[in-house]
C-alpha cells in the first residue's frame, strides 16, 4: 500500500499556497513536513485528508480499499480536538469508535477498545469524568486515542507533539512505531524532532 | 365528617386543585431528596477512590505533624 500525490497545488483565499507538489509514501514509512509558518503544512494535510479540494493534481492510495476515497483511508489529527465538553471521556471515544468507518479491515489492523486506548495514553482514570474537566494535554491525548480505536492505515498529524509532556511524547513515539510496524503510514507537520527513528522529510519553501 | 362531602357542584375542581398542589410539591420534594441522595452517593464514591478535598488533606497533614 502506498500514498501517492502528484503535482498537487492548493489555493486558500485566492493565494497560491503551494504548487506542483509530489510525494509518495511507502507502507511502514513516516514523512515529516517542515517549513516556516504559513507555508501550507496544515493545508497539505487537509488536502491529503480530502477536506480541501486541491486546485490541481490528485491524491490516491494505491492498492488500498478501492471503494474508499483517499481521505477515508486517513485519520486526521488537527489542532482542534473534536471533543464535546458535556460528554464524558468514554462517551466521546465510544462515539468515534462507533461512528468512523474503518479504512481497512486487514488482520494486522486490530483496533483497540476505548478502555485500552485510554490506558495506552494514560488517561483511563478520567474515563467517567466530563471532558470539560480535562487539561489541554489530556484533551490532546484523548484526541490521539481516536486514532487507536478505528483502524485506518494513514495518520495525518498536525503538530502531534504540541501540548504533550515528555511522558506522553514517549508514549506517542511508541504508538507511532507500532503503527508503522503494522504497515501504516504517517505524515506529520511538525517543528520539533519526531520521536521516531528514520523519518523522511519534505521541506516546503515559500513560493519565490 | 359530613362537611367534607358538602363541596357543592364544583367539588371536582376543588379536589383537582388540592391534588395538583400535592402533586407539584410532592414531585419537587421527592426530586430534592433524590438529588441529595445521588450527590451523597457520588461524593462517597469519590472519597472511596481516595480523592480528598483540600481541607480534608490539610487536616490530615496537620494531624500527621501533630502526631509525629
Amino acid at each position: 500500500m502506498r500514498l501517492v500525490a502528484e503535482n498537487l497545488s492548493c489555493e486558500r483565499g485566492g493565494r497560491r499556497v503551494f504548487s506542483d507538489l509530489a510525494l509518495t509514501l511507502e507502507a511502514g514509512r513516516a514523512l515529516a513536513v517542515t517549513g516556516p509558518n504559513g507555508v501550507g503544512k496544515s493545508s497539505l494535510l487537509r488536502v491529503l485528508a480530502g477536506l480541501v479540494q486541491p486546485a490541481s493534481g490528485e491524491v490516491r492510495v494505491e492498492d488500498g480499499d478501492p471503494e474508499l476515497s483517499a481521505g477515508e483511508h486517513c485519520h486526521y489529527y488537527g489542532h482542534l480536538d473534536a471533543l464535546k465538553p458535556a460528554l464524558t471521556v468514554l462517551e466521546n471515544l465510544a462515539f468515534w469508535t462507533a461512528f468512523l468507518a474503518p479504512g481497512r479491515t486487514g488482520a494486522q489492523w486490530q483496533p483497540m477498545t476505548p478502555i485500552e486506548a485510554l490506558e495506552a495514553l494514560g488517561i483511563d482514570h478520567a474515563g467517567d469524568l466530563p471532558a470539560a474537566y480535562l487539561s489541554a494535554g489530556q484533551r490532546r491525548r484523548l484526541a490521539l486515542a481516536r486514532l487507536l480505536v478505528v483502524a485506518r492505515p494513514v495518520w495525518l498529524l498536525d503538530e502531534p507533539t504540541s501540548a504533550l509532556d515528555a511522558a506522553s511524547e514517549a508514549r506517542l513515539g511508541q504508538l507511532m512505531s507500532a503503527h508503522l510496524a503494522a504497515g501504516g503510514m504517517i505524515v506529520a507537520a511538525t517543528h520539533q524532532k519526531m520521536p521516531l527513528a528514520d523519518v523522511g522529510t519534505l521541506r516546503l519553501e515559500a513560493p519565490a | 365528617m359530613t362537611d367534607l362531602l358538602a363541596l357543592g357542584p364544583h367539588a371536582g375542581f376543588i379536589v383537582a386543585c388540592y391534588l395538583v398542589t400535592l402533586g407539584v410539591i410532592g414531585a419537587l420534594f421527592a426530586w430534592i431528596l433524590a438529588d441529595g441522595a445521588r450527590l451523597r452517593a457520588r461524593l462517597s464514591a469519590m472519597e472511596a477512590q481516595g480523592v480528598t478535598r483540600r481541607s480534608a488533606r490539610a487536616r490530615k497533614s496537620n494531624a500527621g505533624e501533630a502526631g509525629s
Partner: protein
Amino acid sequence: MSGWMGALFLRELRLSLRVGGGALIGVLFFLAVITVIPFGVGPDLNLLALIGPAVLWIGALLATLLGLDRLFQADRDDGSLDLMLMSGRPLEVLVLVKCLAHWAGTGLPLVLAAPVLSIFLNLEPLAIGAVALTLLAGTPALTLIGAIGAALTVSLRRGGLLLAVLVVPFSIPVLIFGVSASGAAVTEPTPFMTPFLLLCALTLISAVVGPVAAAMALRFSSD
C-alpha cells in the same frame, strides 16, 4: 450499518439535553412568543381563538429556525465536522440523522407543549387536536429545511438570524398548509385531510431535498 447512525443520534440527543444543550430552550421560546402575542392583540378570547392556530404555528416556526444555527456550527467549532466529512459515512444520511435528533430534542417538545399553550389562546379541544397533529407532521419539515440554512451559514460567525432569513421563504408552504389544516378542523366546510396530506407530502419532500442540499453546502464550506 445502523450502528453509526444510532451512535450519532444518541450523541446529538444527549448533547442537546445536557447542560448547555439547546433542547428545552426551544419550548421556553415558544412559551414566551405565545404569551407575548395577546399583549399585543388584546385579551379578547374570541379573537385569540380565531388566530390561535396561526400564532402556534408561527411560534413553532420561529422556535425551530432560531434553534438550528448550532446544528453544524457547534461541530465545526470543535473540529468534529472535519472528522464527519472524512468519516466515510454518506453525508446526506448523516445530515438526516442530525436533523431527526435535533427535531426529537427541539421539535417534539414543541408539539407536546402546543396543547398546553393553546389553553392561553382559548382554543377548543378539536382545534387543539388539529394543531398538535399538524405540528407533529409539519415541524420535521421546518427542521429539515432549516438544516439547509444551517449548512450554508456554518462558517459565518453570526449565522443564526441569516439562517432564518434564508430559510423562511422555503417554509411558507409548510406554514400555509399547517395553519389551513388546523383551521379547517374547526370551520366545517373546508376539509381537513387535503391540506394535512399536502403538509405530509411537504415533509417527505424536504426529507430528501434538505439533507442533499445541506450535504452539498457542507462539502463546500470546509476551507
